[in-house]
């Protein structure tokens, strides 16, 4: 299965791959973790090969399947030839990248994206952050791919439930998480972690929003994953795989204190809002509505705007 892929040079850091269905929020999460907006984010599937963010690299380099490397002038990451590219390497040291490399994978289940594109890079990852849409969480297509991931990787990976802001009622969130706990029992290092990624990005620097969005718990868990990788994996063989992380209720439980420390260490220092969908929704619409109707209409749907 392993088609070898040219590896980046330099000291090896833990590698976290972001995987999941397309549009699940992988790139949004990568942007959040790396404190950047470099990764394109959009509502439809993004047609990019894996993007490997690493502090030990520099510039933007297209690594071809044949091993050749081509520096990209244009660092917008557009127009990369999917058929010939193994991955795109981006040198970046911000946020979590001072402790780990991030590999933002293309989504599964995109009919236009051959699975080989992410499959061939899979063996490079030490752990996976599997992103699943809260509103359609953990479907068979995800479970089937997860089954193919080696057990050792699965045991130190996390299930991140993105778009949790779209499940409004707390009791529904709890029931969703209970189902995920039952269905993915033993398949991840810890219980599923719900997070509202776009909230977290918008609320950077505000501890209340940071915590309310679920980003703090996510950071804590990632901290634990990194230390488990650090303990047993990097530079040693698979036999030294770490024990499973301590588990607890993702809703209520506070993370272990060492994890809290880790969490603080990985809060991004600076995060810019991504380009897509950044403008305040509604402004354009308002301009085009007939003012009288608009005011009434807005009142009717009970718009509460500051």
């Amino acid at each position, binding site marked *: *299965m*392993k*088609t070898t892929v040219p590896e980046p040079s330099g000291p090896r850091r833990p590698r976290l791959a972001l995987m999941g*269905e*397309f*549009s*699940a929020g992988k790139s949004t999460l990568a942007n959040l973790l790396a404190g950047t907006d470099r990764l394109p984010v959009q*509502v*439809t599937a993004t047609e990019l090969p894996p993007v490997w963010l690493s502090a030990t690299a520099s510039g933007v380099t297209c690594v071809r399947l044949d091993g050749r490397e081509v520096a990209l002038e244009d660092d917008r990451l557009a127009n990369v030839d999917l058929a010939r590219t193994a991955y795109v390497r981006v040198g970046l040291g911000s946020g979590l990248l001072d402790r780990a490399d991030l590999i933002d994978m293309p989504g*599964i*289940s*995109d*009919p*236009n994206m051959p*699975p*080989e594109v992410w499959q061939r890079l899979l063996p490079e990852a030490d752990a996976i952050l599997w992103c699943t*849409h809260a*509103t*359609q*969480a*953990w*479907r*068979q*297509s995800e*479970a*089937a*791919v997860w*089954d*193919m991931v080696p057990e050792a990787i699965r045991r130190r990976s996390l299930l991140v439930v993105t*778009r949790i*802001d*779209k*499940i*409004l009622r707390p009791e*529904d969130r709890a*029931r*969703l998480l*209970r*189902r995920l706990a*039952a*269905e993915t029992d033993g398949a991840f290092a810890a219980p599923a972690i719900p997070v509202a990624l776009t909230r977290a990005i918008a609320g950077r620097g505000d501890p209340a929003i940071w915590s309310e969005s679920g980003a703090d718990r996510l950071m804590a868990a990632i901290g634990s994953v990194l230390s488990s990788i650090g303990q047993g994996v990097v530079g040693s063989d698979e036999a030294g795989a770490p024990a499973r992380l301590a588990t607890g209720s993702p809703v209520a439980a506070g993370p272990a204190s060492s994890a809290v420390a880790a969490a603080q260490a990985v809060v991004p220092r600076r995060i810019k809002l991504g380009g*897509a*969908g950044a*403008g*305040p*929704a*509604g402004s*354009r*619409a*308002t301009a*085009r*509505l007939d003012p009288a*109707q608009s005011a*009434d*209409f807005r009142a*009717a*749907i*009970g*718009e*509460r705007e500051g």
Partner: protein
Amino acid sequence: MSAPHPRPVVDPAGLSGRDRLVVAGMDGLFALARARAELGAGLVALARLGDRVTRRAAERLMQTVGEPEPSVTLIGQVKAGKTTLLNAMIGRPGLLPADVNPWTSVVTSLHLCPPVPGRTEGARFRFFDEEEWARLVEGGGRLGELAARAGAGDDLERVRDQIARMRERSRKRLGRRFELLMGQEHEYGYVDAALIERYVCLGDDPGAAPRPGEEQGRFADITRTAMIDLTVPGLPLQLCLRDTPGVNDTFMMREQITIGAIRESRICIVVLSAPQAMTAMDLALMRLIANVRARDVIVFVNRIDELADPVREVPMIRARIRDTLGQHDGPTDAAVIFGSAFWASACLTGTIDRLPPDSAHALLDWAPVALGEAPKPPDDDPVATVWALSGIPALWQVLSDHIAVGQGREGLSKTARSGLNLVRALGASEGAGARAIGLRRDPGTDPASVSARCAHILSEALGRFDTAAAQACAAFAERAERAHRQFIDRATHSLIAHLEAYGDGVVWTYGADGLRVLLRSSYLRCGADLHRALAQTLERAAQDLAGVTADLVELEGAAPVPLPPEPSPVPPPVSLGQSIALDLQAGWWRSWWYRARGYEAFSERFSALIAAETGRMLADLREGQLPDLVQSLRSMIEGFVVDQTEMLVALAARPDAGAAALDRATGLAAAAERRAAAERLAALFEGTLR
């Protein structure tokens, strides 16, 4: 039995509140209902005009004016919002249970009807019988069979394990009744959410022991079908909407139930989720349905209220759907409608003033753009505006048009055709058209002899048709088997070439669509042959029957030949829609491939798998669908000849008939009037047929 009366069509302008919202966009259905009412009125007139036999036949026809009941299936990935959408479409938020976790577990047919005196709401739930259940448990259903064939023992185990757990759960819930319930049906004279919840939803926390007194999903695991009769005020005609369990659920059985239900409706609404529209799973589903009938797939992209910027994102999603369908041979001409079942529900529950802030923003953003396209709400009513933005009226509009031009049209023609036959038969007995001079009283014109002659005509006709049908089916079998053999040869070559070039480290995939196309065209060709045989048989039988009329009645001019019925279009080859191993490229196929690697005789193993899988598709066509089609055409011949027989026997039994006798009894003027009325009716029916 009292004579049925055509239902007056409700004027939508007279409705208010919710009822008014629900009918928005149903223009096509209203037009169809009006056409049916006109036809119905014609049949009433015909019943009054004719004798007892004609009246009975006209009354029977009146009952078929509403047939076939148009039916529509909602289908889509788990949690796309199918159930919520369905509830919104019929103006009954919360009626069918919806949830954040996988929920619908039974195909649920809602038979919708305008309120009619004497018709009440109700529900029937049918349980699996022992045999079906045993097959599920032992074989793991269709998926288990597939897994077994692929040599994926652990997948088979998993499916079996899921089913065993389901059975255990049901046993715990139902105790000793469990066995007793098998094969039973529960019927209720009312419907509400709490009742439905006991039968069709999964219930909380699958796997967990039920809480005492927990009614949710009490019978869900063993319920095979749910049929619910509902009244919808203002609805112009009767119709059926079907909710199905979501596909791509980890509980794999559910998907099989849904795929099996595709064949039950001509029209499918594929429900997608805007934030992740058109995944490989959605595409596979659409192609599966499209293989069946492209024209009748409608896409509803739900959850646009969850988009951060619908104005920018909806066109992106639309373009993406079109491109993906185009690149992968999907049905690019399918209508694509955007909307939100959530907004629709808010309209129905009177909560549009309490939308969550993100949702309200999306709505305001989307409003000016969408209102340019959507059917305009009748006034400045904000609820009607939000309703229009929810996409429900647009969905009803497309749906109504599909129904009206498809099943609706066919039903009208069928009835009009039979109506015309009745008018013509009336003419034969009463002298309209060819003037009847009188009944002949030759030997062999007594009722018993006429009946025997007609029976002979029927058996001759059936014999001729059976011979032709057997030929057509044999020709199909030959063509299909040739296509199948060629497909397997090509697939095997491709597999070997792949292994030589890449080894077994790269997954080999091979689409089965080429085979589907070939089988489909062979099937359609066979269908056309059968229709031709049917037409010839009916034509001949009609001539023979006219011969009986001529012997029975003395006529000036030729005896009228009854108009034979026309068959519905050949039913789509739904057997081709079943998923086979090759289609499961996204998930299972890959994992099987990797697991089977290194086995001895790897390529033989996969070739055998493909042969078995595609062979199944072919066998289903040959042993299931074609015989069904032959049977349905055969019963059309029977129906036609039997109806005509009844009229001829009645004619023979008339003590005193013929124009002269009639004229004496009713007066010449009355006879002329009746003739004129019959001609007007003939014109009405002919008009419908055009």
